[in-house]
C-alpha cells in the first residue's frame, strides 16, 4: 500500500507518541473501537477526556490550595484522574498521577505539589500533541483514519 505523504506523517507522529511514552497500548484499543459507524470515536473520547480532566485538575489545584492536608481528598481526585488517563492510554500522565498518589499516601505535601505540576505539564503536552495528531488525521480522510497504518 502506498502511503501518501500525509499518511506517512500521521503514522510517524503516532509512532513517536508511543515511543516517547505519551501513549500506550490502551490507545490501540480505542482505535479498534473506531469504525465506519463511529469514525471519530477516538477523537471524541480524547476530547471528552481533556474536558473532564481539566475540571478534575482544577479541583485538585483548588484542594491543594484550600485544604492541602486533606490527602484523602486529594488522593480521591487523583484516583479519578488516573482512571480516565489510563482508559485513553495517556501513559505519562498516568505515571505522574501514580507518583502523586504515592506522595499523598506519605502525606508529603511538598511532593504532592511538585508532582502535581508534573501532571499538569504532561497533561498540557499530551493535549497539544494529540490535537496536532487529530488535525492531521482529519486531513487524511475518514477511510484512512478508520484503518490507521500501524504505528
Amino acid at each position, binding site marked *: 500500500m502506498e502511503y501518501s505523504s500525509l499518511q506517512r506523517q500521521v503514522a510517524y507522529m503516532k509512532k513517536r507518541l508511543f515511543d516517547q511514552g505519551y501513549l500506550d497500548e*490502551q490507545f490501540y*484499543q*480505542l482505535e*479498534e*473501537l473506531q469504525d465506519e459507524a*463511529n469514525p471519530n*470515536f477516538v477523537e*471524541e*473520547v480524547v476530547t*471528552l*477526556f481533556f474536558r*473532564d*480532566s481539566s475540571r478534575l485538575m482544577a479541583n485538585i489545584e483548588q484542594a491543594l490550595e484550600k485544604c492541602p492536608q486533606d490527602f484523602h481528598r486529594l488522593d*480521591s481526585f487523583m*484516583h*479519578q484522574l*488516573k*482512571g*480516565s488517563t*489510563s*482508559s*485513553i*492510554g495517556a501513559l505519562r500522565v498516568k505515571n505522574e498521577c501514580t507518583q502523586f498518589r504515592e506522595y499523598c499516601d506519605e502525606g508529603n505535601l511538598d511532593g504532592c505539589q511538585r508532582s502535581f505540576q508534573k501532571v499538569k505539564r504532561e497533561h498540557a503536552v499530551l493535549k497539544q500533541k494529540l490535537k496536532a495528531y487529530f488535525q492531521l488525521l482529519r486531513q487524511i480522510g475518514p477511510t484512512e483514519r478508520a484503518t490507521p497504518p500501524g504505528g
Partner: protein
Amino acid sequence: MDPSRAAASTASSGRPRDGVGPPPDFPAGLRVLVVDDDPTCLKILDRMLRKCLYDVTTCTRAAAALAMLRERRGAFDVVLSDVYMPDMDGFKLLEHIGLEMDLPVIMMSADDGRDVVMKGVTHGACDYLIKPVRMEALRNIWQHVVRKRRNELKELEHSGSAEENDRQKRALEDGDNASSASEGNWKNVKRRKDGKEEEEVEEREDPSTLKKPRVVWSVDLHQQFVAAVNQLGVDKAVPKKILELMKVPRLTRENVASHLQKYRLYLRRLSVPQHEARLDTPYTGASEATFRSVGSFDGLDTQALAVSGQFPPQSLTTLHSGPRRVTTTGIGLPSIDQVGFFNSSAQMANASNIRPAMMQQMNNKQLNFLSGPSTNMESGQHGQSQQLVESYGNMGLRVGEGASGFFNLPSSQRTSTSFPGGTINVNLSNSLPMQMTQQGQQFSVCQQQNRIHISMPRQLQTREQLLNEILGEYDSRLSTPMGHQILSNEVSGHVSGRGRSNMNVRTSLREGYMNASSYGPLSHALYADFSNSGMNESTGSCYPLASGAGTTNFTSIGMLQEALPPVGNVETLGNSVSVKGANDFVPDYDLLSDVRQSKSQDWKSQNIDVSYQSAQQLGSKQSNIDFGSSRLAHEDSIAAIKDDKSRNACTVRKEIFSVRTEIEHEKGDCTAQRNGTILVENSLRVMAEGMSDLSYQEVLFDDNIIQNELMNVVGKKQQEGVGQVDPEFNFDGYSWDDIQV
C-alpha cells in the same frame, strides 16, 4: 445516550424481548447496565460493549442506576459498576443490587490493590476488572450471567430437603456477609455447591430426609414460632427450646432449626435500614398503580385460587389492597401488615376463582411482588387468601397493569410485604393474588386459601422469617397446610416475563428451594429463583420460560416459580401457580426449574414453573395480558405434560412462555379474568403434571368454578405425588388443550 436506547420502550436498549426465548445469538443482546462517574471511561465502555453486541445502558450516578434497576426489573442481565463514585460507594451499590435484584455485578476500578479486589469478592461481585478495561475482558462478561443462573438452578435442584436448607442457611450465615444478600447468596451458592456433594450425599441417602413431609409454616405456626423465639430471646433461642415452647406435634427440631435460620437471616436483613427504605420506595411507587388495578380485582374470585392452596406468591393481594402498604421497610412485614393481609385475603375462599387467573397473573408479573401492603386486599372478597407478598428488597409488589386483571380475584388477599430480602407473598387461604412484579408491574396473585406463599429469594432466610411473621399474623384460617411459601421475590419481581437471564431470580430462589423442601411453605423461596429469570422487564420480552433451557430464559421461569407459592396443600391447589416443590427439579434454567414447590415434593417443579411462567408472561407485559381463552388455545396445552417429570417442567414452561409471549404482545390490561385464566393455566399446568386431564384452558378462563376444581384437582394431585418436574426445560409446546379439567 443512544437514541435507539431511548426509543426502546422497555429494554434498556433497542433490543426488544419478544418473549420467544433468549436471543439466538446470545450473548449478543446481553443487557448491560454500566455505572461509572467518569464520562471518558463510560464512553469507552459503552462503545466496547456495543461492539460486543450487547445492549448497553449507561449511568453516571449510582442512585440513578438503582432507580433504573428498580423501575425496570428484569431489564438488565448484568451490571458493571465502578468502585469509586462520588454519590455512592460502588460496594454499596453492589450490595443493593444483590439484595434487591440479585443481578450479577462486575466491579471495575483502576485500583488493583488486593484489599479492594477482596472487598469486591466478599461483597458478592462476580468479577472485578482492572481499568483500563480491555475489550477482551468485556467480551466474556456474559459468562457470569449464565453461571449465576446455573447456580441457582442447581440450588433449586438440590434444595430438596430441610437439611439442605439448613446447610444453605448455615452457609449463608457463615458467610460473613452481612453486607449484602448477594454476598450471602454467592456464598450460599458456593457453599452449596461445595458442600453439596458431601452433604447431599448424606441427605439423599437418608430417606427420611427426602421424604420428609414438608412443614408448612402457616401464619399461625409462624406466630407461635416467633412468640417462642421472643420468649427465649432471639439470641438465645435454640431450636430445641423453641420446639418445646411451641408444642406443635409433628414438628421436628430440624424444621424449627431451619426455620430459625431463615428467621435470623431475615432479621438481619431487616436491620439494614436502607433496605427498608428501598423496599418501600420501589414498591410503593409501583404499588400505586397496582393498587388501582388491584381494585379491579375484586371481581376475581380469589377463592378459586384458594382452592388449590397454591398461591402464587406473587401476591395479588398486595395489589389488591388498596392501601398498599408496602411494608417495605423490609423489615419483615410488620405484623400489622400481615394481619391486614390475612384478613383481607380471607375472602379468598374458593379456589374456584381466579386462582388460575391469578396464577397467570403471577406468572406474568414478576413473581416478586410484594409490596407490603398488607391490608390491601380489596374488599372482603379476597379475604380468604392473603397473599403475603413480601418482596425482598425490591421486589415489592407491583402490580402491573395486567395485574389489574388479577386483582379481581375476589378473595385474594394479598399481602405483600417487602422485605429487604425479597418479597414474600403470602397467600392466605384461597385467594391467589399473585403479585407479579415486573419491572414496575406487579401482579398480585391471588392467594389461595390458606396458602401462604412466600417467595423468598435467595436471601430467603430473612424473608422467610418475615413471612413467618406475617403468616403468624394471618388469620388462622389462612394458614393452610400449604403454609406460606415465600417467594423470594427479589428475583421474582423481575420476572416480568422476560425469559432473559435474570439470574437474580435464581439465586434468590435458591434459598427458597431449600426451604421449600423442608418446610414446604416458607422455605421455598424457590420462587425466588424465579425472579432471576423472570425478572425481565415486564415489558416485554417474555422469554419463553422454557426456551433455551438453561439459557436466558431463566427469568421467566424463575419468576413463575417464585410466583407460585408452593403448592403445599393439595387441598387448595389453587395456586398451582405456586412454586413447585420439586426440589430436585433440575431446570435447565428455565424458570420452570426455578419454580419449585416447596410444598410437597409431589409437585413437579414444573407445575410451578409453569404457572409462574404464565404469570410472568402475564406480568411481564405490563400485566395486561390479554389472555383470552383464545390465547390459551394457542398455547400449547399443558396437557402435554408428560409424565416425565422433567417433561412437565418443560412443557409447563413452554406454556408459560407461550403465554408469556402472548402476554407480552398483548400489553393490554389484563382483566382479572384473564389473569384468572392465566393463573388457572398455571395451576393447570401444575396440575397437569399430575393430572393430565386438566385443561388449562378452562382454568384459564375466569371461571371460578373451574378454577376451583382445578385447584382442587391440582391439590389432590399434589398430594398424590405429582412428581418431580424434570428440570429440563424444553418446551415442546404443550398445548393447553391437553389439560382437561
